[in-house]
């Protein structure tokens, strides 16, 4: 059994801001095509560029749900610039840490955020070929991404 912190358990059992948003400014998505969209991040951003609301929908394990939940809390009140600086390490740290094998579940949050902010800035989604071998079949996360998530 995974060793989850109390904070992970809390965010998993009582997720904050779960569910779709009525009228989002922008939506970020991540997940491989083969396996379907797995994390959707809904953001409401005011004209000054401050995030006023954030919600999520996640298909994933407890770590993925807790990571999404804590991410939405981190995002609220931040400017888009501040939000862009959030890393998966920060998400994991906010949860009091994740088991090593589950670090990649927090990568999802960061990537959904990146995708949302790129859309917000009107940039095209870059079409990158995944490097490395797919290890988490849930989201098409690669071993390179995981190694990065663990070592960064």
């Amino acid at each position, binding site marked *: 059994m995974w060793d989850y912190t109390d904070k992970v358990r809390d965010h998993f*059992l009582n997720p904050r801001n*779960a569910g779709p948003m009525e009228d989002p400014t922008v939506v970020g998505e991540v997940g491989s095509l083969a396996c*379907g*969209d797995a994390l959707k991040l809904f953001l409401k951003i005011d004209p000054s560029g401050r995030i006023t609301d954030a919600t999520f*929908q996640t*298909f994933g*394990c*407890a770590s993925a749900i807790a990571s999404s939940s804590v991410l939405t809390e981190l995002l609220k009140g931040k400017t888009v610039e501040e939000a862009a600086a959030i890393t998966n390490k920060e998400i994991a740290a906010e949860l009091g840490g994740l088991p090593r094998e589950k670090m990649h579940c927090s990568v999802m949050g960061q990537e959904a955020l990146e995708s949302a902010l790129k859309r917000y800035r009107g940039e095209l989604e870059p079409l990158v070929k995944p490097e490395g071998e797919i*290890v988490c*079949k849930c989201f098409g996360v690669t071993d390179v991404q995981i190694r990065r998530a663990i070592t960064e």
Partner: protein
Amino acid sequence: MKEVYLDNNATTMVAPEVLEAMLPYLRSDYGNASSMHGFGGKVGKVIRQAREQTAQALGCSAEEIIFTSCGTESDNTAIFSAVRSQPEKRHVVTTRVEHPAVLNVASHLEIAGYEVTSLKVDEQGRLDLQELEDSLRPDTALVSVMHANNESGVVFPLERIAEIVKSRDILLHTDAVQTVGKLPIDLQTLAVDFLALSAHKVHGPKGVGALFVRRGVPFRPFMLGGHQEKGRRAGTENVAGIVALGKAMEMAEAGIVDENTRVKALRDRLENAIMESIPDVRRNGDPENRLPNTSSLAFKYIEGESILLMLDQYGICASSGSACTSGSLEPSHVLRAMGVPFTYAHGSIRFSLSRYTTDQEIDLVLRELPGIVSRLRAMSPFTGDQAGQACAC
């Protein structure tokens, strides 16, 4: 909070009678069965008795039973013995849905230059016996087919498989770790050469198992060393564990009817009520040929670990995939082999009951599960039209 233990295919409670039987050998009678004194000699006698009990429950003779340390060791021993005793034969047949204790030995053999045929299963988890027959070759050393699958509960038609394999004079091993105590086994009529079992799956302790090796079948020991088990398995005998296994086997045989009536009825009630009260649930595996205690159910749109952890809040113990692979991130190889669509495979939960499961426990699951599934589904980004796609991975 008392746990509601519905994870009996992973491991089982040690029966109080079994614990009672083994305790003297952890307390006062700690002798070594090989010793030349009465104190050791008397434990030799109880090992003989446990061997008789085990043989009795399986319909074989005592000298056909080798005690091992677990189901995994029994599987390893059978497969390596079969290939080492026939070095000229370089082909092995098995299935895609075996336990890792067989699968990983097969991969090891493949790396060592063996050819391995892995039989496929259909969406119900059933084998194609024609494919089995066609796979057999003059240089086939062994066919290894499990009796029942630990994840789906699907039971393979072992009698017919034995007919096909033995008519070609090929050695046949079966991993019966999941069937002992759940289905009757009679080795007088069931023509397998090897059969593996594990005590902790039948209300015995962890750390002891057995391997049946039919008289006359060539044998090569896996564990090398002292002369224990007539030179077939070295290492000081785990006396308490062996006594426990003997008692557990006796009780397992006696409990077969209860397992296939009362326990089966509880399983059916659980399964039917879940499928009626929760939408988008499907059953994994052939309902006709299934262990009486097992229900593998797939909950669309949501993920197994999340369901398990929420069930855990109520003390309900279940499993997603097998406990052996739940430490990994891959979806179960069994469900993948059955072609279970992606969003279903990831949302599969196995409930496995036992003689100790009560009506009240089933009621508790039926009370809590629908709410858990709704809460998780409310968080899921999946919608009806995306589901049902096959997973490419």
